[in-house]
């Protein structure tokens, strides 16, 4: 059994009882990256020297005894839109090619407090805009299950790194599906917490009313472990919720008897690959066999979610990305004629086509004369979509469906057609608009490619989501399937 097969709790046990040194564990991660990342392309920046130094410090600390952090000595990869002091943070953009953050995101402070070690920064679609990782300004990420296919996005590097066993867990961010969809495509576990559960301080903003950081892991127990370390109120993020954080690990009882599950017919209808639908129906049978009940429900405004999302997210992005002006950080065009020329040329040289497209869409939707027709209208439809979930959760504990309509598609297949690309997110976007938590877990394969099952819960009820996901994976073992990548 390789170290990468061990759960975080088992690694914690081995490390703290000195059966394994932190240096060995970090070395295993760095060696695996050196061996495999030429093929995968998951990492944009490595933190090798600092990671090794931190490892030897933790090994020295073991000699002195005392309480050890929850993630003591565990090597992690971090999506490159989470700022890391002294470690280059590019957001997958040329605009920030040489950006060296002067502070740590709150999640990084929390990971440090839990004594995790950052091995590097992970590739992503530029500014988290995309669902295939093809919008990275550096290089695409390849799916470890099939190197000619996309890993999904925008947290494509974060999902591929876990699937390729390069890091023991990673952090991603999810605005419309950017943790869950790549987790599904790469056959790993991706959790988008309730909006506000995890601080966004230090997450480079894309769409502030939707963005949320979450863990990508090999299994559900690890997901609960990492969530425990990063959740909680932060006075530096005024949209972070001041709620009590439960003990997520103790929620993993394996018992789902009597759970009421709603299955939206809109998530199982047109556009859903027949094999994906089949895997979801099989998963529902597993839940039935464990004593849960499911029935078909309707979330009637599902069909409006993608349009709503692209108007709202692009509008927020056009405003958030106004800060990239070449004044305080990032690229500045050479020899500008004047200030305006500097703004225009710096932004035009620094941003890629998808980022420009969304800034244009958002600027248009917010511009004088169109605000009510597009932005306000979309906010009103968002209310209707949120009500669909509120009503369903009056009767059901969980909502279950596919994470994505199809398995991973081929690199280059959808590049010229932004609208088709956007429709890959049809099952994840409504959840983001409602702000509720959801996890994607492996539920088998279709033609050898992983399929993700999406389990959606009530606001701040991550415990029930994790409990159901954990019971399912314990029963089926689909999370043990792995790519042949040697």
């Amino acid at each position, binding site marked *: 059994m390789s170290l990468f097969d061990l759960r975080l709790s088992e690694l914690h046990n081995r490390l703290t009882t000195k059966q394994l040194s932190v240096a060995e564990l970090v070395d295993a991660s760095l060696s695996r990256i050196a061996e495999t990342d030429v093929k995968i392309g998951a990492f944009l920046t490595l933190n090798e020297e600092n990671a090794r130094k931190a490892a030897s410090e933790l090994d020295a600390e073991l000699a002195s005894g005392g309480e050890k952090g929850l993630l003591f000595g565990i090597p992690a990869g971090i999506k490159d839109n989470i700022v890391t002091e002294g470690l280059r943070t590019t957001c997958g953009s040329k605009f920030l090619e040489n950006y060296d953050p002067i502070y740590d995101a709150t999640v990084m402070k929390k990971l440090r407090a839990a004594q995790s070690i950052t091995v590097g920064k992970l590739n992503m679609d530029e500014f988290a805009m995309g669902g295939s990782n093809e919008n990275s300004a550096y290089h695409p990420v390849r799916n470890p299950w099939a190197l000619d296919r996309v890993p999904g996005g925008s947290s494509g590097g974060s999902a591929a790194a876990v699937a390729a066993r390069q890091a023991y867990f990673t952090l991603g961010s999810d605005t419309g599906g950017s943790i869950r969809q790549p987790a599904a495509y790469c056959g790993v576990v991706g959790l988008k917490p309730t909006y*506000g559960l995890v601080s966004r301080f230090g997450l480079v903003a894309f769409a502030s009313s939707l963005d949320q950081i979450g863990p990508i892991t090999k299994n559900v127990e690890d997901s609960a472990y990492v969530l425990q370390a990063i959740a909680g109120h932060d006075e530096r993020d*005024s*949209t972070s919720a001041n709620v009590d954080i439960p003990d997520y690990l103790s929620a993993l009882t394996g018992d789902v008897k009597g759970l009421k599950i709603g299955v939206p017919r809109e998530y199982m209808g047109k556009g859903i690959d027949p094999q994906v639908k089949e895997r979801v129906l099989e998963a529902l049978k597993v839940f039935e066999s464990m004593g849960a009940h499911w029935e078909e429900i309707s979330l009637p405004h599902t069909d409006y979610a993608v349009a709503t999302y692209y108007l709202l997210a692009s509008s927020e992005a056009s405003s958030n990305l106004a800060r990239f002006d070449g004044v305080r950080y990032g690229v500045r065009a050479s020899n500008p004629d004047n200030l305006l020329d500097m703004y225009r040329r710096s932004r035009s040289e620094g941003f890629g086509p998808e980022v420009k497209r969304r800034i244009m*869409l958002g600027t248009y939707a917010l511009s004088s004369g169109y605000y009510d027709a597009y932005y306000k209208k979309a906010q009103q439809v968002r209310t209707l979509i949120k009500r669909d979930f509120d009503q369903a959760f009056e009767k059901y504990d969980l909502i279950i469906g596919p994470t994505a309509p199809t398995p991973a598609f081929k690199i280059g297949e959808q590049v010229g057609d932004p*609208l088709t690309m956007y429709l890959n997110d049809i099952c994840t976007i409504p959840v983001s608009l409602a702000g509720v938590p959801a996890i994607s877990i492996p539920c088998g394969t279709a033609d050898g490619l992983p399929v993700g099952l999406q389990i959606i819960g009530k*606001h701040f009820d991550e415990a029930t989501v994790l409990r159901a996901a954990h019971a399912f994976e314990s029963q089926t073992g689909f999370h043990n399937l792995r790519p042949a990548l040697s």
Partner: protein
Amino acid sequence: MSISIKDVEHVANLARLELSDADKEQFAGQLNAILKYAEKLNELHTDEIEPTSHVLPIVNVMRDDAVKPSLTAEKALLNAPEEEDGQFKVPAVLE
């Protein structure tokens, strides 16, 4: 409603982007397709519906107006493309 090249130029100016002629053509086509798709929202009657800007019931988060340590000027300037006398330097705004 259809977006013309002139509209694209107007929006690009608002967004402080400089686009090539080929970009303008492409964006006009793609934005038209996306906005046409978005027209389906008009199937829904929403006059009485409150807009949702944010899903959590949090408003006006206040804190004490207390002085705390903040970034030093030196640190704030670490990523500056150009600086002079401890300040960010930009091209002249007025001639």
